[in-house]
């Protein structure tokens, strides 16, 4: 992955709204621009601009069917970024560390919610 592509990828990810868009695309592969825009308090044109940035970073793939543009999340650039700084050895332990973090934090959130209820 060349540096220009990495810059585009990181700059596209450096925005909470765009990260939320990727979450929504993962939850609903093939979602239309209109449906995606309904999740944000900004105009469809503004959403489209963010989608274009994500497309340029290769994080989003657009497939046109009829008059509708369907959006898909592309995990490959993130995998390439991960491959750059991990070996199979470090990935093994880093994955376990990440699993522990997710599980412990999830449990803590569950406990907090049950206390509130």
């Amino acid at each position, binding site marked *: 992955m*060349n540096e220009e*592509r990495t810059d585009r990828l990181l700059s596209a990810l450096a925005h909470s709204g765009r990260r939320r868009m990727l979450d929504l695309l993962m939850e*609903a*592969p*093939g979602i239309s621009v209109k449906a995606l825009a309904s999740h944000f308090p900004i105009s469809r044109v503004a959403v489209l601009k963010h989608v274009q940035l994500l497309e340029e970073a*290769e994080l989003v*793939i657009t*497939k046109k069917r009829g008059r509708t543009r369907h959006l*898909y999340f*592309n*995990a*490959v*650039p993130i*995998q*390439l970024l991960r*491959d750059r700084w991990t*070996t*199979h050895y470090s990935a093994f332990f880093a994955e376990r560390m990440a699993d522990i973090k997710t599980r412990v934090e999830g449990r803590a959130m569950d406990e907090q919610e049950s206390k509130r209820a």
Partner: protein
Amino acid sequence: MPEQPPSVFRVWIDATPEAVWHEITRTDEPIAAFFNNRMHLSGELQPGSRLAMRTGSGKWTGVVGEILEVMPLVRFAHTFKFTAYDDPECTVIYELEPKDGGVQFTLTVENLPVGTKTGKNMSSGGKLIVNTLKRSVETGRPSFGIRMLYVLFKVLEPISPKRCESDNWPIDGSRGTQS
């Protein structure tokens, strides 16, 4: 059976369309991006031909399918069925588009049956396929980790499920050599 939405994977490869096309359609050597399996065809690379992805020894077959579309240097599509599962076939489409002096390579997997092992494996395996293809075409070989994984596959070959034996998945007039 209900279907999952398509899975789409895309990567830019610093190579010519010819090099990428050769890598995804070759029958003379194992294809690193296809889990080091070798593609065997029942005839020419054309719609209607049957294909089988077999191990280097030819003894085991992981995937079978039928070629749906061949547009050299642009698009290659075939049906795809894991021999290990009873799941219905899905469709894989490879698309090549010249971009920025290289190739934009897209893999789309359609007709994935919901809740099946095929659906699960193809949703995650696509990333590995396009990544390994990029690395193989750009550097001539897959990454060290993937090479190690393929060594492991070879070691584990004898304990593959019996139903995956190539004798159970013949393709007429196979032109790949099973040595």
